[in-house]
């Protein structure tokens, strides 16, 4: 089997202690929660941290009162009855049951960006002389690109962006709260605005939204998203009072499509309006050839998935489409 590199293991009991360790170790230390992303990556030498600072023993990260502790497992987020639909659907479609039982909400938000030239063993990467994201100088996805275009592959982030959620970050200078969208940079390497000595401690999710998350992936059983569409609406009668639509997996960061939200405001969700909004959303999808499936096709179906999301929020019965695309039986987690 692939072996891990050697590392030191630290297990603080409090966030403050974790922050202190991070500050002391410097950039050689990394946080680990469920380890479902980091440990396989370490086996492939994507990261070889000198020290791993585990968050598992920090009880305060596992609380759920008012906000979601970053250390809650994805399974716990799904099981919580108050979890909004988009977040539940997103968390429930991350990987497999085993991984959802280990992987955490904070970990999914901080998920390393992914690329078919990067998520390979060190031997494989050596055979292509490495790539821009790690140990090399060329981006093989776009050889002229100066920037790494690895894809953001978190499911929960677009859902939380649509839900207007905020993340809490604790650092040596205290705690700050920023919108989820602001956690990300559109850069495959430097993809998080979290500072190296900060710990993502929790997520504040406001209520009052009707929301949904649609995930495109090859298999219903498990796969990273190759397109994620999250939509949240506040309705005023049959008119849209507020709308937030976010996309995942089509750039190095998840992002909100403001134009579509603006466009929907004050409108009735007719087929025509939904189609126009979907076009606005799809125009912002710029998938690259760095993940699964044909990239032109992924671009082509972005509007369809946006329509699914909006039609579902309108109240259409999309359970058959859900069954076919998510390959899940109707009602699996589907209620809003």
């Amino acid at each position, binding site marked *: *089997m*692939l*072996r891990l590199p050697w590392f030191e293991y630290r297990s603080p009991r409090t966030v403050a202690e974790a922050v202190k360790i991070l500050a002391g170790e410097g950039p050689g230390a990394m946080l680990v929660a469920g380890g479902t992303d980091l440990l396989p990556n370490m086996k492939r030498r994507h990261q070889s941290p000198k020290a791993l600072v585990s968050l598992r023993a920090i009880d305060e990260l596992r609380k759920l009162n008012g906000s979601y502790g970053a250390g809650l497992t994805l399974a716990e987020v799904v099981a919580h009855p108050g979890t909004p639909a988009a977040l539940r659907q997103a968390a429930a479609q991350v990987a497999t049951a085993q991984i959802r039982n280990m992987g955490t909400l904070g970990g999914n938000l901080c998920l390393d960006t992914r690329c*078919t030239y990067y*998520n*390979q*063993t060190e*031997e*494989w990467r*050596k*055979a*292509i*002389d490495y790539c821009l994201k790690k140990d090399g100088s*060329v981006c*093989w996805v776009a*050889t002229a690109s100066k920037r790494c275009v690895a894809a953001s592959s978190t499911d929960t982030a677009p859902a939380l962006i649509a839900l207007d959620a905020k993340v809490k970050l604790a650092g040596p200078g205290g705690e700050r709260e920023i919108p989820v969208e602001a956690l990300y940079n559109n850069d495959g390497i430097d993809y998080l605005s979290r500072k190296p000595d900060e710990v993502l401690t929790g997520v504040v999710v406001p209520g009052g939204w009707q929301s949904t998350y649609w995930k495109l992936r*090859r*298999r*219903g*059983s*498990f*796969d990273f998203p190759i397109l994620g569409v999250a939509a949240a609406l506040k309705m005023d009668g049959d008119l849209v009072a507020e709308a937030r639509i976010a996309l995942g997996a089509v750039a190095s960061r998840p992002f909100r499509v403001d134009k579509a939200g603006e466009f929907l405001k004050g409108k009735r969700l007719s087929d025509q309006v939904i189609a126009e909004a979907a076009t606005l959303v799809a125009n912002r999808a710029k998938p690259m050839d760095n993940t*699964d*499936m*044909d990239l*032109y*096709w992924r671009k*082509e*179906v972005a509007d*369809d998935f946006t329509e699914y999301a909006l039609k579902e929020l309108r109240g259409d019965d999309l359970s058959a*489409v859900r*069954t*076919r*695309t998510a*390959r899940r039986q109707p009602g699996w987690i589907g209620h809003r």
Partner: protein
Amino acid sequence: MNETKKRLEVLGKPRRRVDGRAKVTGQLRYADDLSMPRMLHAKLLRSPHPHAIVESVEAEKAKQHPGLKLVLTGQDFPVPFGIMPVSVDEYPLARERVRYVGDPVAAVIAVDEQAATEALRLLEVRYKVLKPISGPQEGLENPEPRIHDYGEQGNIHRNLSYEFGDVGEALRNADFVAEDLFFYQGNTHLPMEQQASLAFLDPEGKLQICSCTQNPHYLQRQLSRVLQIPEPRIRVVATPNGGGFGGKCDPGGHEFVVCKAALVLGRPVKIGLTREEVFYVHRGRHPVLMRMKTGVTREGKLTGMHLQTLLDGGGYGSHGPASTFYTGVLTPVTYHYPRFKFEACRVFTNKPACGPKRGHGTPQPRFGQEVQLDKIAERLGMDPLELRLKNLTKAGELTASWLRVGSTGLEDCLRKVAAMSGWKDRHAQLPRGKGVGLACSTYMSGAGVAIYWNKMPHSGVQLLLDRSGTVVVYCGATEIGQGSDDVLAAIVAETLGVDTGSVRVVTGDTGITPVDLGSYSSRVTIMAGNAAVQAAERLRASLATAVCETLGTLPDRVVFSQGKVFAADNAGAGMSFVEAVAMAEAQLGTLSAVGSYSPPKPPGRYKGAGVGPSPAYSFSACVVQAEVDERTGWLHVPKIWIAHDIGRALNPVLARGQVIGGVYMGLSEATMEEQSFRRLPEKLSGALVHRAPSMLDYKSLTALDMPEVEVALIEDPDPNCPYGAKEVGQGPLLPVMPALANAIYDAVGVRIDEIPITPDKVLRALEAKARGKAPRVGPESYPSVPYPEPTFVLPPWEGGDGNEMRKGGGKRAAAAVV
């Protein structure tokens, strides 16, 4: 003997397989579970270049590592190996040349896996990089650099042409000729268990290797050859394979490495390949480009077929010479073609070697054939079911290519699957976006000839019976999950009238079991099974002779049933099986019997006639239902029906499991699996790498993605098979891919003439259709391939005798036969 014939007591009843408990409780010991005192660990250094000359391997730094025990390189292995005698072209560690990214170059043996991993990084290899050949067309266009210095010419490894009757004439005389191009992408076996081996010297100093191989006998021969040790000093124990599917048929470089290291160091040496390495060892499905011309009459009778195939062989021969044949030879077994011609060419490329995967070489042409039949039916305005029924081969007939069809339940399969699926009410009648597709297939129950030429049996079984009533079955067959241990136990139990609880099975151990050629080509049930029947019948005859006087009857009137032995006309009296055994042992001494099996001589007598014949063929018919979203091309398969002609299901639970497993693998290949490669921009890089050598990124269906599969087993016992049982391990995979393609056409009227069928291809075809273009995605052209002059053989009904002829009459002079 007729009077002693009884109803089946063990066979035909659903039973828990004999190895089931150990498997579900996790007690079964796979190769990687094995551990020995003082055991060392090996790791292989693999080439980062697709094509290069190895100039030097520098091990000085690695030798400084405190955990290191030994470094091996190509210089330690001067003798090559190869599973087929005609393509012995591989070294355990590359000597001068590496031929794909992942080709093993050196090995380190260290105190543990961690140390081996670290030491491996300290090895320094100097390469001289050569131009890589990335595909067969490139290989045809570039005879230089040659990947191997043997083969037909340039980078062509094998090149074949066979013509059975004048096919040109058959096509000219047809009312129309369907001509199609198809492409079938390569894919790999993806067994759950990664290859692992443990080698050590037994207390007598003899070499033993425990390895997850499908073919311990062939491995023993290859080890003897490469290590230059006599076979009696080598014992190969095939550990239970966690899935094989053909991927563990070839000997692997790692197996030689651990053996050599154990010999040098005198300590046990183990290796467990990583998942990535399993993708490099490969030997899976060849990517095949096909051109198929079929002549048809207005009434829907096939007049002949001309089939051309081009195989992407990868970097080594492997089973390739056989694979090349298999892209042609089984095509005429399902339907009657009065004339048949096939040309096949395998080209070396700088990628992991292709070889046998479930269905070996036949799913590719079967896909083309069954899709083309669907197109022909449409052109004739005929129900695809009727077209197929009209052209079926008949039991016992010879094909144009001189294969003996034997028993066939294909008509029953077709009628059954049509009834189960409601074919008549669904085909061409479901609402737009929904459709059903039909396809058929056949497969061999064991290859008619061994991989190396010999006149000895293909399978041997020895039974040992002791006074406790325990029967031990010894056989070289290997349990790879297919249930061969259960088959052996059940057949012996049935024949001796005991239950499987009294039977112990010892298999796949060249040190103690009689030779069986291995678990490939769906041969074990019929060949080891027939050998087991013979051995058990001999044992039963001995027992009957010993007890008949006491029972007051003749030996052939002694009945063995439910653990009792009695006279046929006095079932109330008699004795227990154990008493009978004790009586026989007292009279005859220690009780044992052997049985063996050789398949019948193939009817064809031309050179090459040895590939394709089988004692019996299984048949399958499958209906797939598909739903296509016309806006996205998204494809959904809610249900599959399949009928499989198995002769007899020895254990219906296992048989159904095999059918569903085959359907699973077929659907996975049909919809997503691709062993595909990236050639980076040539100006910037010479890299040619596997796109996704991991379980996550090599996409295959999981159990959760499977639709419901409704299975019908068609049982009409085949006289050549043990208790009539034909194969089930490979056949049911084969019709799934074309049935899906045909279902998509029924749903939305587009043809996807290549595998895998993905949503983007469906959408592209739908868009072409909307623009008024040909509603099809598939290969657009076929390269010029220098196929040789055909070997010409007259079909049986045209006065042929199975020998090669000159086209236009007269036997070809022996000297001209190359």
